[in-house]
């Protein structure tokens, strides 16, 4: 009925007219705010969009604050473990540094004397609070025998009183049964150093007439045949002279901290007894 050409031209005109209408409506909408159609559509679509948007937000929230946090929690666990390991390593390093400092002192002490010494670690302590002995991890196989003196750089510790192949028992100078021949460094007053309680020593059989004051240093005399002469024992902290009696009562605080005793040295070559007197 219509030629092809006519149909193309008509179609083009219809499209131009439609475009004109669309442009006109666009102009009307812009100039007269929302059209009722748009309002109707937004009335229905808006809440749905809002709902979807909130759901997505909620999902995102769950993802970021829960599922994502599972990974964060795992990471946190890992970091905590790494932190604990690092803390342990720091502790080990500090402990090594302290041990190193102690052993350095030991080496210096060893090289400053002519004694043949063997170092040992304290592995056990006396189960009774009334007696003071320690167990060390060196024994007969290391050349230890009963009566050998045990020392640290700060002063004397005690003597070996029992030995097995790999371990030895050391009676500390703060033990009540301990007795060390000693003298006051300043006045050369002689006496016997014995244990008093868990931390202190007493200096017995010191004549009243001898001059001893608080702060004096007490050293080994070398007369007991166990401890070499001149090793420090402790400082005088109390002097008491009764009205009667021939001796004075003296309290000594040892230079060695027996609560922190960890390593000791055992002198293997006993000194010759010097009977020259002071």
């Amino acid at each position: 009925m219509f030629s092809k050409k006519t149909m193309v031209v008509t179609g083009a005109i219809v499209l131009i007219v439609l475009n004109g209408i669309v442009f006109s409506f666009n102009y009307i909408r812009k100039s007269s705010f929302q059209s009722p159609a748009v309002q109707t559509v937004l009335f229905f679509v808006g809440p749905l969009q809002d709902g979807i948007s909130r759901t997505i937000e909620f999902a995102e929230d769950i993802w970021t604050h829960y599922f994502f946090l599972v990974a964060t929690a795992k990471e946190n666990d890992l970091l905590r473990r790494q932190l604990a390991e690092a803390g342990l390593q720091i502790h080990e390093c500090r402990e090594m540094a302290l041990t190193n400092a102690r052993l350095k002192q030991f080496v210096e002490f060893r090289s400053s004397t002519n004694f043949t010494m063997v170092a040992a670690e304290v592995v056990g302590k006396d189960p009774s609070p009334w007696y003071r002995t320690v167990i060390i991890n060196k024994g007969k196989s290391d050349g230890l025998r009963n009566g050998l003196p045990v020392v640290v750089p700060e002063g004397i510790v005690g003597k070996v009183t029992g030995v097995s192949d790999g371990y030895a028992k050391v009676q500390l100078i703060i033990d009540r049964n301990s007795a060390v021949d000693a003298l006051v460094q300043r006045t050369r007053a002689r006496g016997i150093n014995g244990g008093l309680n868990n931390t202190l020593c007493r200096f017995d059989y010191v004549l009243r007439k001898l001059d001893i004051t608080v702060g004096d240093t007490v050293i080994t005399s070398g007369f007991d045949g166990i401890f070499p002469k001149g090793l420090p024992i402790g400082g005088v902290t109390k002097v008491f002279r009764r009205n009667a009696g021939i001796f004075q009562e003296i309290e000594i605080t040892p230079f060695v901290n027996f609560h922190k005793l960890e390593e000791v040295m055992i002198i293997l070559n006993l000194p010759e007894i010097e009977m020259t007197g002071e």
Partner: protein
Amino acid sequence: MRYPVFLATTVFLVIVQTALVPELSDSYRLFDLIIPLAIYFSLFRPFLDGLPILLAAGIMMDMVSGAPIGIYLTAYLWLFVAFRQTRRWVRIKQSILFQIIVILGVLFENALFWIAISTQSGRFVFSPKAVQLVFFQILWTVIAAPILLMMFHAIFHAADRLGEGSMRENGKPKAP
């Protein structure tokens, strides 16, 4: 099976009180942990269960301590024999009674040490520190005795059951 378990428990207690406890607190020492063991054997176990173990415990403690040789051994044997007699008059099932008996044991052992020290030094040795020490030991006893009682019950009953089980197995006739 029983004796190795008894012995292992004894060695464990000796190690704890000579190596572990002094590291934690050197000033206020724990009471002797073998005392509750001696009293447990005395009150709850047959005579032949307790005697060899307490002999071993006493010798072990005497060897590691600087105390006069035999003092621990005699202390444990005294406690073992003395409290065994109390079973005739008192039924000790409650931990409070066990606590009291262990406190008596601790006081008895400390008295033995005090006598030993006083006789050794030839003078009456008394100091506030010693009183403080005994006081702290009693406090520790109040805390630790019920726990030790439970521990001994659990370990030794398990050892008994194991022993019974193995005896039953050994007694079964073997399949041809």
